[in-house]
């Protein structure tokens, strides 16, 4: 097994966090800099999945190791916390708490996307375009 904590371990062993931050920045860039409203929603989705990736990485007990003896948090028979802790019979379970939180986040994200798409359709019916700058220009013409 490679000792990933040696030396610049925070850069190498925790690479999931850096990828997550990179995806977050990609989504944030799309939300700010892209003019098309549908592109903004796509950026919002990427941002959301980046945060979910961050939390799932937190729950994975063995980030940076080669995954020896790690299983999904599905337990047959006795509950693991009855023995005190999440380690039993030499098996390490991933922490299920962030998973449950992120299930709720995915559901809320789907609802948010549906509302955003409905608003985009309404704006297209009103202005005839879904480009942000053209909408601002039309509003200026109308003197709003």
């Amino acid at each position: 097994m490679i000792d990933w904590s040696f030396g610049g371990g925070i850069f190498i062993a925790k690479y999931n966090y850096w990828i997550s931050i990179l995806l977050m920045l990609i989504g944030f860039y799309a939300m700010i800099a892209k003019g098309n409203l549908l592109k903004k929603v796509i950026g919002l989705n990427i941002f959301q999945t980046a945060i979910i990736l961050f939390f799932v990485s937190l729950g994975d007990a063995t980030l940076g190791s080669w995954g020896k003896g790690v299983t999904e948090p599905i337990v047959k028979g006795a509950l693991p916390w009855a023995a005190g802790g999440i380690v039993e019979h030499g098996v390490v379970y991933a922490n299920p708490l962030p998973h449950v939180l992120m299930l709720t986040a995915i559901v809320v994200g789907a609802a948010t996307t549906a509302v955003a798409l409905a608003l985009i359709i309404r704006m297209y019916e009103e202005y005839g375009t879904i480009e942000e700058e053209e909408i601002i220009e039309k509003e200026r013409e109308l003197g709003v």
Partner: protein
Amino acid sequence: MNGKKGKIWEENVIIETITRLMVPFIQIYALYVMVGTEGAGGGFQGGVVFAASIVLFTVTFGISKGRKRLPESWNAALNSLGLYLYAGVGLLCIVLSLGAAQYLNYAALPLSQIMSPAHTRALMISDVVEVGIGLTVMSIFASIFFDLAWKGEGKKNKDKNKGDKEVQE
């Protein structure tokens, strides 16, 4: 995918046949996810997969045929039925134990002649409640898809018609 008369695409025998073959299997898989396993969980995912089968049917056969399979009145009935199923089982626990048990305390249900309290709890959590959640999620997701895809037949202006001509091909 919009609500104009007739179809704006050609009928494709391969796609229609494959859709007819796939939809029942997707729905059985959705039911398996909902009630097939012991233990809690899976209602939301099963409902989404069930809604995906309706979306697949609608994308293939057009929105008017899809709406015929899941009419709008069914939507309202199904999503309130799911909610009532969930809340009703919870209230049943209070009512049948004459106020002794808490809300959603499934072990208080008078099924002790048939099965043990643990089995009652497992049955209620993994089957009844999950079917309730699944019905609500299925009808809500199908409803969101229909409402986003369906262009109302009331007011039509130039921009709308221009818009869907570009999407057609």
